């Protein structure tokens, strides 16, 4: 069995590897085994059966969507499904992580987190920030990326990292930036504490404003548009006190203080944000590593080890505390290597389990005995449509505008629970009846149905193209019937293409 072979090979590799070697292939494999042993232990103790592994078709589609944000092409699917090498999954994982598309997908995601939804010129700036992030994710470790973001200075055109600091004509408020940094970089939600001590958790109002103080030096109170002329810079003279305007809820003008009460060093020549970045990315920081590990896990597994993903606190316990601590330590030891941690996670059996429900399906998902079904995000949907159909008909303007508009239309607001389908009638109407990709569907059908092919060959190709799998015998029958009734292979092909694109299966990452 594949699984036994994998185990044997991994065991062999571990035995022949020096325990203190740097982050290389074997470490990720070892870490994957360790992940599995922790998860399996809990499954066993709760008497929950493990779901079986995905078949190759489920696996290839899921992996491409999770690592590259897009379905595999027809060629990529066929190649993988034909591969008999017992190590094919591991090989594919390595290939996908090394591909530049890995960074591009993460850049897309993080640009969405970082840019204020109300910022002017959002589209143009989003593209600039996305490219910058893509490059960094492909080359740098997480602590380096966050340091560059937190300490970013200069003008937008010269340093795209400052984009998220600006909203409209002004710098983003210290409250906003504190909320953003704490949620995304530290995995904690401080914003309730802006106005009062958090009712359910330990965060105090003082802690919120202590953190907010770190963002005060970039502000330009009373002057808008200055940031365009001179860029973002740290002005030692601006403190929270300078920003007091009598209208901000809960405002407290205090000195910068790290979460947990420590004060930054007394060297006033070091800008606040530099001190903040240093504290955040330190190996001893109790939040930083866990936040990224949990968020990466959440993206891949559809639920975090802590849920909600950005709300870690003592009253919100992780489902697997030992696993979280353990992964966080490994992440730190690796030098905050996000590719390494991702690789270990997708190598694990837990990641490769099917999403088909077994006994006690809810419980199975909750403790990672089964993968939940995830919903394709707006960007994944668009990029997958382009993969299958080519670029849509343009109505003037650059392609990136069409992509942005589509994503904004199809993207959910609110807490992004990746397993909840939240689109409504307007979205389904557009998917069914929009002209945007209609011509592409016609061309595709024309080509696919051409030159004396049989109904089975046509169906085979369309299923592989759209759903990344071969059709079942039943599905082949359904299509053959449809061709017989319509008497036109081309017409039926077009209908099949339309139908496949409208299936739940296409819109979901199972």
């Amino acid at each position, binding site marked *: 069995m594949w699984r036994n072979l994998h185990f044997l090979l991994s065991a062999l590799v571990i035995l022949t590897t020096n325990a203190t070697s740097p982050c290389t292939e074997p470490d990720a494999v070892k870490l994957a085994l360790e992940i599995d042993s922790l998860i399996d232990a809990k499954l066993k103790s709760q008497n929950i059966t493990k779901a079986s592994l995905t078949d190759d078709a489920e696996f290839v589609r899921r992996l491409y969507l999770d690592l590259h944000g897009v379905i595999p092409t027809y060629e990529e699917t066929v190649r993988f499904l034909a591969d008999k090498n017992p190590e094919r999954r591991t090989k594919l994982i390595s290939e996908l992580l090394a591909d530049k598309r890995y960074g591009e997908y993460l850049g897309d995601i993080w640009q969405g987190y970082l840019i204020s939804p109300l910022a002017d010129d959002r589209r143009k700036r989003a593209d600039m920030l996305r490219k910058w992030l893509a490059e960094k994710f492909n080359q740098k470790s997480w602590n380096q990326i966050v340091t560059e973001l937190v300490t970013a200075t200069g003008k937008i055109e010269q340093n795209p990292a400052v984009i998220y600091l600006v909203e409209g004509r002004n710098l983003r408020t210290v409250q906003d930036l504190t909320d953003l940094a704490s949620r995304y970089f530290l995995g904690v939600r401080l914003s309730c504490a802006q106005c009062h001590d958090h009712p*359910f958790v330990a965060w105090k109002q003082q802690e919120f404003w202590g953190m907010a103080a770190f963002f005060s030096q970039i502000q330009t109170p009373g002057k808008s548009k200055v940031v365009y002329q001179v860029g973002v810079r740290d002005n030692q003279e601006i403190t929270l006190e300078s920003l007091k305007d009598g209208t901000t809820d809960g405002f407290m003008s205090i000195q910068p203080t790290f979460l947990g009460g420590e004060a930054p060093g007394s060297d006033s020549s070091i800008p606040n944000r530099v001190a903040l970045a240093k504290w955040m990315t330190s190996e001893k920081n109790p939040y930083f590593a866990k936040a990224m590990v949990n968020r990466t896990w959440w993206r891949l597994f559809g639920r975090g080890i802590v849920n909600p993903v950005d709300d870690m606190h003592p009253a919100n316990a992780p489902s697997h505390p030992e696993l979280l601590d353990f992964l966080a330590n490994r992440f730190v030891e690796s030098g905050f290597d996000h590719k390494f941690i991702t690789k270990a996670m997708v190598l694990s059996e837990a990641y490769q389990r099917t999403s088909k429900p077994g006994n006690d399906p809810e419980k199975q998902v909750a403790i990672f005995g089964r993968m939940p079904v995830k919903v394709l995000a707006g960007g994944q949907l668009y990029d997958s449509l382009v993969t299958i159909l080519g670029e849509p008909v343009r109505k003037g303007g650059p392609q990136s505008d069409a992509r942005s508009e589509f994503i904004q239309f199809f993207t959910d607001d609110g807490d992004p629970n990746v397993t909840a*389908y939240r689109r*409504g*009638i307007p979205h389904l109407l557009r998917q069914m009846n929009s002209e945007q990709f209609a011509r592409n569907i016609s061309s595709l059908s024309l080509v696919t149905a051409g030159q004396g092919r049989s109904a089975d060959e046509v169906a085979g190709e369309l299923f592989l193209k759209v759903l990344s799998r071969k059709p079942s015998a039943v599905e082949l029958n359904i299509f053959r019937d449809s061709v017989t009734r319509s008497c036109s292979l081309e017409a039926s092909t077009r209908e099949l293409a339309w139908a496949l694109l409208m299936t739940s299966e296409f819109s979901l990452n199972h």
Partner: protein
Amino acid sequence: MNPFWNRRNFVANTMTGIPLTGWLGRLAANAPSQSRPKSCILLWMAGGPSHIDTFDPKPDASSDIRGEFKTTQTSVNGIRISEHFPKFANLMKHAAILRGMSTQESDHSLATYHMHTGYQNRGGSVVYPSIGAIVARELGSQEVPMPNFVTIGRAPQEAVSSGFLGPIAQPLGVTDPVRGLDYIKPLDSQEVFNRQVNLLQQLEAPFHKAYKSESGIAHRTMLDRAVKLMNSEQKQAFDISRETDQVRDAYRVNALKDPPKRGDKNPMALSGSFGQGCLMARRLVEAGVPFVEVVMGDGVGWDTHRDNFPRTKSLSLECDAAMSALVQDLQNRGLLETTLVVWMGEFGRSPQCGGGGRNHWSKSWSTVLVGGGIRGGQVIGKTDKDGASVVDRQISVTDFLATICTILGIDYKKKNLPSGVERPIPIVDTSKEIRILSELL
């Protein structure tokens, strides 16, 4: 969810001699006499209309404040408004002018979000639902194919979201009311569409059997609803070409009776499509949609930092015609009692108008409520002699939205428990004291 709409009936007993043709008539004929749940039509004046130049004129102030417009008497003694709302002046007994509005945001996006949701946008983890989504959720039906929240015109996307209320309460957007509902017609023939849907249904079955996921079920349900809407009779409510020319003309201001030419700048304003949007709103409310938002002013709209007087005048005249036709039409069809019309922007504009423009002003401004069973013919709140601050009866955004909820029969204190958020969230932010405008009830 309001049980009334489960029976898909529409009240007809208060119609005064207007023949109801076609499907509307059939449904009306079968309806028992029942009190109809309320609906709301929000007329969103994007850009922030000047309160002094519309509903809170200051004829006795100095010339650099009162501006260029004169005032007109209304059908209610003692209430005067801008001369450029002549038709609406005659309908004042149905309306209440809220001159005491005083809110906290002066930036367009932030203020728009603030006025639609009652909360301030902190870019945080909670996305609050728009008032339209709230009404859709509380008063709408899940049984009928019609959506419960419709926006007409270029709606402010971040401010009309259903947020944590989810897809059931999402708005269906109609960009151009003259063109109708986007994507409602299949690309090919009905025959081809039916075959495609049939094929789809056959293909879906094995996936759902194998994966049995909630998200799959949600997708399939939404798809079914979309197809039902496409095949429904009720979708005709989105087709204003079914109205007579006479009715359609009533919603246009005289100067704009000519059809727009290609290349006309700002076609929304020129073609009178705001008025046609109001007409569609009336049809939708008749068809049972609980909340329709009609947007006036795409792009710059009422945001008159420059050319305040010529632009405000033309916008006022267009708005006057549309709004008055709407109120009149609703009244003629016996719908005014149960339909609340809300006229509002995101803030007012500064009293100082030397230089021909007025800037943003959130400290004191005006909104208008019409119909919905309110006690009309009154003014609530008063500003100082320059229209610069509220001297009597300050109305916050939460006072305002809570009052609207109350008029519509919604408990504004009711709490939602959105997933992923620990604390229950009331429909209207109750963290500060709320004073309902009981004078209206």
